[in-house]
């Protein structure tokens, strides 16, 4: 029982981790929480659905298309909704409102055009389960965990070793000095959003496969936000750890206490964290720019 | 009893010591200058006194009360006001509104419940505060600009508005952080005259950070010279001008006051 709960928790946690990393990535550069990220994930899920179900593409191709598609949409989001605010140094409240607006717009656009029905993905992974430690784990879940970790690892390598990655890290500490040293901040920020979008695409397609695609699935990503806060907003390793911890904790609460309480638990945890440990485990609690 | 006593004040940010074992006194109605190279820790001292930073160790005694650890708004209520090096006006509000907000602290006293129903005494109080705000603007010569947006003012006038706002808080101790920054020699001397006149009129004690040496030498009874977070020397303007340590660290060995 214990191990089963743990494994289930890890599976969900892997996806949470992926989404949390996307949030933290943007947060670490721009010092703001992108409330529209949830809708990008949702759009990624739909792109994946159409690739697999309607166009009959193979899974690897669909994955790539989704990644690129979501990356592009995330980039567009930044350019349309945030870049002009950034250029005139608008207060963070304006960014939040713009993000909310984007999220409402996208969610309801899907609602209005495609419809509110839940889109079931075709079966890509066989339903059979593997057995480890006397517990069952679905092939899909296993694949999701592994792929998530690979993706995060690749991202981590990119950010620590490549030149662009170093520029991103530098910008997260001091964007002004970064510019003086020749970094084109505009392009860099665009790139960061593309990366976050790619992660969103991966999360979206896995969420779609595990559950289904529907317009309000962005709601799940509120959990990703909690995961990011646990790990510490702005810290990528923290986001991973936070995602896993949240997934596992939720799983245990669900099984051993009650599944209804699960969401209340998560949100209460969030509020407690924000009050007592806002920097999370690994994060930096930055004061707001005034 | 001195108005302000700084005792062994230290502020560390992690490994950086911004202010180290600083001690000095400020007596009633004195004007004390705080000078030193950039990064010497002058604004840090102001931030410590006004509660923006918490002291790591040491005491800040205002009158007979310990200020270290109090929140900024409580410190203001006790009677310490400041202006900012990089001007923090309410940019979108008018000049008059900026002063009225400051006056609200001590000059306007009516309970919330009464104001929600707009009893006549509230309307009267509002008229009075408006009048008082105009008077304060007259002190610095800004009454003609009362209804202009604060950020539409030229730089020098914005500084004057900052001062007017600080006065509205009815302080006993006024902290001025580089009030003459960006001014030419003529404007600086005019400002010095203004500071002198408000000091006399409102019986203020003043702590002044400045780089314009003519303003400092003109106004200050005593000067505290800081460097690398420490107090280098303390003395009268004459003593400071000829002190070899000060000349080496800050004024420059060729500095001579005519």
């Amino acid at each position, binding site marked *: 029982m214990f191990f089963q709960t743990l494994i289930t928790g890890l599976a969900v946690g892997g996806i949470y981790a992926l989404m949390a990393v996307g949030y933290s990535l943007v947060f670490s550069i721009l010092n703001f929480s992108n409330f529209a990220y949830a809708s990008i994930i949702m759009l990624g899920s739909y792109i994946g659905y159409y690739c697999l179900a309607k166009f009959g593409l193979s899974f690897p191709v669909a994955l790539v298309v989704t990644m690129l598609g979501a990356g592009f949409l995330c980039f567009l989001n930044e350019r349309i909704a945030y870049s002009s605010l950034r250029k005139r140094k608008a207060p963070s409240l304006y960014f939040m409102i713009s993000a909310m607006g984007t999220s*409402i*717009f996208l969610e309801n656009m899907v609602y209005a055009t495609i419809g509110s029905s839940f889109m079931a993905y075709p079966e890509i992974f066989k339903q059979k389960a593997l057995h480890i430690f006397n517990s069952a784990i679905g092939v899909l879940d296993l694949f999701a965990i592994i792929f998530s970790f690979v993706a995060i690892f690749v991202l981590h390598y990119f950010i620590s070793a490549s030149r662009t990655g170093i520029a991103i890290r530098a910008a997260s500490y001091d964007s002004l000095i970064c510019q003086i040293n020749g970094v084109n901040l505009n392009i860099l920020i665009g790139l960061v959003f593309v990366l976050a979008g790619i992660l969103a695409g991966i999360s979206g397609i896995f969420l779609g496969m595990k559950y289904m695609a529907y317009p309000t699935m962005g709601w799940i990503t509120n959990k990703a936000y909690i995961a990011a806060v646990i790990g510490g907003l702005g810290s990528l390793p923290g986001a991973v750890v936070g995602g896993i911890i949240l997934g596992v904790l939720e799983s245990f609460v669900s099984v051993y206490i009650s599944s209804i309480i699960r969401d209340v638990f998560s949100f209460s945890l969030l509020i407690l964290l924000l009050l007592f440990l806002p920097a999370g485990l690994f994060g930096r609690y930055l004061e707001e720019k005034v | 009893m001195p108005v302000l006593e700084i005792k062994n004040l230290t502020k560390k940010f992690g490994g950086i010591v911004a202010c180290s074992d600083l001690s000095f006194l400020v007596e009633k109605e004195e004007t004390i200058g705080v000078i030193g190279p950039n990064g010497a820790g002058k604004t840090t001292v102001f931030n410590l006194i006004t509660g923006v930073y918490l002291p790591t160790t040491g005491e800040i005694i205002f009158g007979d009360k310990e200020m270290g650890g109090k929140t900024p708004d409580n410190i203001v209520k006790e009677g310490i006001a400041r202006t900012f090096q990089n001007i923090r006006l309410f940019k979108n509000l008018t000049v008059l509104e900026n002063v009225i907000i400051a006056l609200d602290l001590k000059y306007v006293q009516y309970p919330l419940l009464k104001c929600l129903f707009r009893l006549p005494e509230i309307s009267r109080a509002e008229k009075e505060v408006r009048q008082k705000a105009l008077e304060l603007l007259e002190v610095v010569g800004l009454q003609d600009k009362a209804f202009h947006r604060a950020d539409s003012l030229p730089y020098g006038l914005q500084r004057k508005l900052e001062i007017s706002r600080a006065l509205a*808080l009815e302080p006993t101790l006024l902290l001025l952080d580089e009030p003459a920054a960006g001014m030419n020699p003529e404007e600086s001397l005019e400002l010095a005259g203004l500071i002198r006149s408000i000091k006399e009129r409102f019986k203020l004690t003043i702590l002044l950070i400045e780089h314009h040496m003519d303003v400092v030498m003109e106004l200050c009874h005593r000067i505290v010279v800081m460097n690398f977070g420490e107090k280098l020397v303390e003395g009268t303007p004459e003593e400071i001008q000829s002190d070899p340590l000060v000349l080496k660290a800050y004024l420059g060995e060729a500095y001579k006051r005519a």
Partner: protein
Amino acid sequence: MWYYIQGVMALALINVISVVGLSIFTGFTGLFSLGHAAFIGLGAYTAAICTYFYKINFFVAIILGGLMSGLVSLIIGFPTLRAKLRSDYFAIATLGFGEAVRVILENLNITQGARGLPGIKAYSTFPVVLVIAIIIIFIARNFVFSKYGRMAIAIREDFTAAEMMGINLFRVRLRSLFFSAVCAGIGGGLFAHYICFIQPNMFTSIQSTLLTAAVVAGGMGSLTGPVLAALIFAAIPEILRVANMWRLVAYGFVLVAIMVFRPQGIFGYKELSINTIKGFFKKKDPASDLTKGGAS
């Protein structure tokens, strides 16, 4: 026909009451609340339970609804505001709060859970709502044009400078939150007695964001703007009879467009008064007067 219009107007005015309350919190104090629908829901349920189960007088029930929301706002506001969270963390906390309240409403016995509470008496007639709305707007206006209103505005403009003016951030923010929650609670109670049936899923974060949208579109730092926006937002679905989802698509678009092109909204910083009307015609903007005509 008149009956139908009255109905629409009543609903619009109920919306106005909640929006005015939120305007004090978001528009004037500058804090984002993504869970405000929870306060409306709390007010709705409290008032409905009072009249339905305990046969309490309607007006008393409405007030109780408002007070319940106010009380909860103090409970949730005290720790979160004292912690001086940065604004996006605070917004997330309010989101969490809103969701938590909804889940609780779905699981309590007295609220009959997700099935909802039907059969509430239709006490919210147009004249009743109109009078209450006018009273609330009157009180809100007096708040704005007073020392207390100015303190909130100062905090929104620059909270560090506001502290330097002797303003206690926590107290002012908590006060604004309380006021906005009470208004939302009153709006909720009136709402419950208008549509006569309430369910927890009527009070979701979508509702909260729509309220915020009305405040932002109307103009932060203004009361007239949000009032107008609230009336428009509530009346549109009736006038246009367009499917719900396109309306929301438009709202989302409007929010982004406003932030990008005209962040001050329709009325931003100004109130409807002789001065402002004159201002539209004069070249230079004349006196904006915190003590009389307009909040600027």
